């Protein structure tokens, strides 16, 4: 029993900073209230399935004394220990909160297996999988998944509007009414209830002990209902706008509509599940025959992990792994304020290379040229560059925690990017700089190009992060991270850690009726280089202001 708690606590310590980062980010999201609900549901399901943990084969005498034997001599113990420590180390080095959550769930699963055997493991795994679905999609993919679902919902809403004889047009996934000015950006800014609905579908399956296939079917049909009712929500709001009504635009009305939509989604998902059950004989994952849970001794209910030198040593290893994150946090303090100051301090001259530069304060332009999409409420500054009738737009924004890949913002607004340009990274004359160039096309007669990169508080140019907020070039990043741990850190090393420094975005955009030719692209890049020179001219000293705290 004591051994169980040693391993549990050390495992938590191994993932502490990552878990803190994960929950802070989840609670701060727009659907943050969902997190405590999800934890509560998971706890309830564990309670309902608690008898799985105590299941024993009546004729399995060995198991009754198994708990006395669980220590380092059990072959699986070391495999599990190495696996857990390795995963924890990887997550801490890579600094990804989402990876940390996944490895923590894996750790819990292995601990349950070690403590309660295969029946306990099979009882806990569905709940652990469910907990994963608190955030099923990595940060870098989530916007793209949202894009796909929003596209489907917008198109479906368009079909409904056609049947209602309401005239509209598309700009990417956003709809606009012909009868009204402007786009319905607020209405089409993301599919609601996607993650909570899927979570509840899985929770229902786990709670009712459905076969995994039935739960999978429920998840699939839940996605369909989510898209359908979001489409209906969009169509309803746009119908209201077309009539000139504004009562549905109030916060109360939109909240009511969203909750009603969620209720309808859940109802029809349940109905679809019942239809499935009437067609296919449903199986379940209830306890197999021959397994009893009565007549247990008290000792049988306790986790079968003894306190031994092996458990203690594994615990110490895990604890040390956890210290890596803490050290990283201490070395790389939160620099969100620095980034904001950096952006606010940027001063551009009135003219660069013949281009007249004018700042646009309080610009409300929906076509801001972002290469990386900033967080809501970020500091944003815009400029216009003009020369002989040609116009370019410059935007500097911070911070960007997530890197959904360049061009997501453009894709959302209906721009197409050639695959070649999306992956193109050009080196400027300065070897430390890398930036991205996107060549854009939309409707006939609408084209353009945007060039951009990320900046840190000291103005260093940084490329985008990967799937879990981790550098695409993992080898390089791991090397930098290890250097950071052993004390030879540089600011560049932490720039992409999700519990470290945020990154800003600098983007220069030029719109045109036709695809830009080579000369125009070169001109764009040349001006961008010169803008970066000006930005790099006055870096802020990062050590002057530092306040250790995880994930801001």
């Amino acid at each position: 029993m004591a051994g169980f708690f040693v391993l549990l606590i050390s495992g938590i310590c191994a993932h502490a900073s990552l878990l803190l980062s994960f929950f802070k980010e989840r609670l701060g999201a727009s659907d943050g209230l969902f997190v405590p609900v999800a934890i509560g549901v998971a706890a309830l399901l564990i309670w309902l399935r608690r008898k799985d943990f105590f299941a024993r084969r009546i004729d399995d005498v060995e198991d009754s004394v198994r708990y006395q034997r669980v220590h380092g001599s059990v072959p699986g113990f070391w495999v599990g220990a190495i696996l857990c420590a390795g995963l924890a180390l990887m997550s801490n080095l890579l600094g990804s909160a989402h990876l940390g959550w996944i490895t923590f769930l894996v750790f819990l699963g292995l601990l349950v297996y070690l403590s309660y055997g295969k029946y306990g493991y099979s009882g806990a795994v569905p709940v652990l999988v469910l907990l994963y679905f608190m955030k099923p999609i990595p940060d870098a993919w989530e916007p793209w998944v949202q894009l796909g679902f929003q596209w489907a919902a917008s198109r479906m809403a368009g079909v409904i509007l056609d049947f209602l004889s309401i005239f509209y047009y598309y700009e990417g996934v956003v709809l606009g009414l012909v009868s009204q000015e402007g786009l319905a950006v607020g209405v089409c800014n993301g599919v609601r209830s996607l993650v909570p609905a899927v979570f509840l579908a899985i929770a229902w399956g786990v709670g009712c002990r459905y076969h995994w296939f039935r739960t999978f079917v429920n998840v699939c049909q839940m996605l369909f209902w989510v898209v359908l009712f979001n489409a209906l929500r969009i169509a309803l709001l746009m119908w209201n706008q077309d009539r000139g009504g504004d009562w549905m635009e109030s916060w109360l009305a939109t909240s009511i509509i969203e909750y009603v939509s969620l209720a309808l989604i859940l109802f029809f998902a349940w109905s679809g599940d019942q239809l499935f059950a009437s067609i296919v004989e449903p199986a379940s994952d209830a306890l197999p025959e021959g397994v009893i849970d009565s007549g247990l001794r008290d000792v049988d209910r306790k986790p079968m992990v003894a306190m031994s030198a092996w458990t203690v040593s594994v615990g110490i290893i895990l604890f040390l792994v956890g210290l890596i994150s803490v050290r990283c946090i201490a070395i790389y303090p939160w620099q969100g304020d620095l980034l904001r100051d950096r952006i606010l301090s940027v001063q551009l001259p009135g003219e660069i290379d013949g281009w007249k530069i004018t700042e646009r304060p309080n610009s409300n332009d929906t076509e801001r040229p972002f290469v990386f999409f900033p967080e809501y409420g970020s500091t944003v500054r815009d400029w216009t560059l003009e020369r002989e009738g040609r116009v370019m737009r410059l935007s500097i924004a911070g911070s960007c925690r997530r890197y959904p890949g360049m061009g997501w913002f453009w894709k959302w607004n209906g721009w197409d990017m050639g695959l070649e340009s999306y992956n193109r990274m050009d080196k400027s004359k300065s070897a430390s700089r890398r930036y991205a160039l996107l060549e854009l096309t939309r409707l006939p007669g609408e084209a353009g190009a945007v060039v951009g990169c990320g900046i840190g508080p000291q103005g260093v140019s940084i490329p985008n992060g990967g799937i879990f907020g981790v550098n695409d070039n993992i080898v390089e990043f791991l090397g930098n991270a290890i250097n950071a741990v052993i004390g030879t850190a540089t600011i560049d090393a932490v720039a992409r850690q999700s519990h470290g420094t945020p990154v800003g975005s600098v983007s220069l955009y030029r719109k045109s009726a036709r695809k830009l030719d080579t000369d125009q692209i070169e001109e764009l890049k040349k001006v961008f280089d010169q803008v970066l020179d000006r930005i790099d001219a006055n870096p802020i000293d990062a050590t002057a202001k530092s306040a250790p705290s995880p994930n801001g």
Partner: protein
Amino acid sequence: MFHFLRELPIVTLRAISDGIEWLLVAIWKPFQRESDEDVRPWYKTAILLPLLIPYLLFRLALGVLAFPFRSFFLPPERRRHYLRGIPAMLVVTGGVIGLVGYLFVHDRIISRYINRARGELVRNDVEKSIEYGRRLVTERSSLNTEGKFLYAVSLAQQGTVEGSLAVLEEIAPDNSTGFMPAHQMRAMEFGRLLSAGEGPREELLPKMLWHLEQSGEARDERMHGLWATYYELMGEKSKAISRLEKAGKTNPAFFVKLSEIYRDDGNESMEQRSLSEAAQGYSDRLRENPLSKNMRIQLALTLARQKKWADAEGVLLNGVQLHRDKETLETLADFYLMRLKEETDSDAIGAEQLDLLLRALRVDVNHFRTYAFLSKLFDDSRSDEELRDLRELLEERLVDGGNAALAHFGLGCWFLMQRSNDQGQWHLKQAMALDPIFVVACNNLAFAYILSEPKRLDESFSLVSTALEFAPESTGTREMLGTVQLERGELDGALETLLRVVSENAGSKGTHAKLARVYRERGEIEDAEKHEALSK
């Protein structure tokens, strides 16, 4: 009984199905092998294949039709599941039917957008037309090309020429057959470029020819005109003349163009003949529709080209009597200015020039064009003697009752240009006293008040407002109102006023410059830049 009725539909369907199965077995049986040694000919098997697929489809349809009734044959537990699943089933079925139906009506929906876009173009609401077009260009439909064409036309009308050309290039490419009307537009664009000398001829001429050929048989005067432009550029004048003569039969304007060709060739007799043909054509049309302003104006201009000044003036004065509107008055003023240029040495200062100018000034509600001539009279390059002669001429007319107001106006403008604001103001006030509805004088006096130290903005505003009441159609006066509002800091009012002026007189660079200033003061930089570009 209830049980029987409940089972009747499915029993009936099953009976039919079994009957067909029996039939097929009866057909198949003779072809069955009697023993292993029998070899079934392949054609005896093949003959059944056409029957197999319909049979399978029938059984499938049977299963679908029987599905709603299957609940009656399920165990109680599963029947409950089935009944609870009905809402989902209904929604999905309805959705599938709706989507299938949508595919059938899609083209009809797109054609609604096309009709709306066309309607908005006719009503000159280009922005709305563009929004309809944005849907059209993104839809996959058999009408997609027509939608793109309308979108291109809307963009062209909005002034987004590059965007319009980009769309046209897509639907009427340079190396393959596309949408015929789009080819026509591209031919027109190339004709315009070539006529304006923009772009290399050797590159543009073949493209123009290609698009003309893709535009199909020339059935209307516009196409004949385009072909004529092409032949003219190629130096094939006889072909150009032939085309223009064909086009002129429908539209006399082409005879006027033909006269220009003859004039360039020095063929005066043919030039006059063409002009006579044009005048006859316009005259015939005017006779059919005496209220047609356009025909009247074109007829007058054609007569003026023939130097038949009295006839031309008569036509225009008749028009003024019929409807004294801005367009007709402007044309009459232009006529006098044309006479001034053609008949006299317009750079000289003489009684004849001044009389023509004053006549133009009398009728010109929009004072810009006439005012430009007037300004030339007071040009700084003139000698003191010339300016003295001009002043004397104007002062002579002070005692001429008919021209006194105009003379005071002329002197007022003269003094303002000489930077003598007070004397200028006095003469302008005299002009207004003689002619209270002398709108141009109001305008200039209001401007003089803006220039005075200190600025008399309230009086200026009052003057311009009064002038606008008398001549609400005067864009020059309205622009002056916008200027006064801008000086007074009334940005919203200035914006509304100047936007209206631009919509009525889109080519005014000065107005765009003022609009740019208004937008910049309002902090709307993007719009300011747009108008600054248009003001250059």
